[in-house]
């Protein structure tokens, strides 16, 4: 039941965002709002088992707020640094690549997905593959620092700074 309500409300909000400027009732016309309620109820009933799977942890608004701060603050700064770094390497051509392994201590699927996407968008790193049993990530690193390498494993902080702590705060 909670899943049905949450899915319907999310669908209704997205419908409202996509139909702004259609009338005089605020930003919307009455017909658009009525049609939106009917359509989002139908969609919520059909997809209630697909969208949420027995895990209501992400419904907490504090987590959403933390996620927003993470996107605007450390993530955006990391992305800007990454782009200046890649621009430097494109112009000079100095590369020193290799594939290394990191062992982040995250348990949920959502956390691993967020971390892998964050790593791909930050300085000189690209996530290639995942070991699904132990949640280890394999990272292509464009400028390998051989002093920090232990065999083929690197500590997480050299790859992505303090992203792991932020993501643990968001998802666990």
């Amino acid at each position: 039941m909670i899943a049905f309500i949450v899915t319907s409300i999310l669908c209704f909000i997205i419908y409202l965002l996509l139909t702004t400027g259609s009338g005089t009732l605020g930003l919307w016309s009455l017909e658009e709002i009525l049609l939106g309620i009917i359509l989002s109820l139908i969609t919520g009933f059909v997809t209630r088992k697909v969208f949420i799977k027995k895990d209501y942890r992400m419904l907490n608004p504090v987590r959403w707020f933390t996620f927003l701060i993470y996107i605007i603050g450390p993530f955006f700064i990391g992305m800007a640094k990454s782009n200046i770094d890649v621009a430097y390497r494109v112009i000079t051509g100095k590369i020193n690549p290799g594939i290394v392994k990191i062992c982040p201590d995250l348990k949920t699927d959502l956390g691993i997905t967020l971390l892998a996407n964050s790593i791909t968008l930050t300085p000189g790193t690209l996530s290639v593959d995942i070991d699904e049993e132990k949640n280890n990530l394999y990272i292509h690193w464009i400028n390998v620092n051989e002093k920090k390498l232990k065999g083929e494993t690197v500590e997480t902080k050299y790859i992505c700074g303090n992203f792991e702590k932020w993501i643990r705060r968001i998802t666990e």
Partner: protein
Amino acid sequence: MLGLIVDVIIYIFLIIGVFFNFLAGFGLLRFPDVYTRLHAGTKCTTFGSIFITGSVIILGLKMWYLGSADGSVLAIHTAGALIAILLTNPTGAHAIARAAHRSGVKPVAAIVDGLDEMNKKTIKKPNEKKEVKK
């Protein structure tokens, strides 16, 4: 006066975005193999697209502020496109890199290749006789 300042900000955002998208194309020609090219192709296009879509969002907000309801449509739909780019771009890069490694493309001039040893243990690869161009 306000309109002029906003216009200057929009032009600066457009210039930054076009510069990074140009660097992405240049990096595709310059780097030696799939993985390093993906670095250029994903990061620079994401960052450049953020600035280009950001300039469109600012234009939409300016039109909205000046009293046209079409501005809200422009700003919100472009924000949706930005979210889609941020989600799909790293996912696509990850899929291409994984597929390339599974089909036997070795990273050129790699110092370590941790993934290669894992694949030998778990997966039997098809015949590897393709040579990687250097």
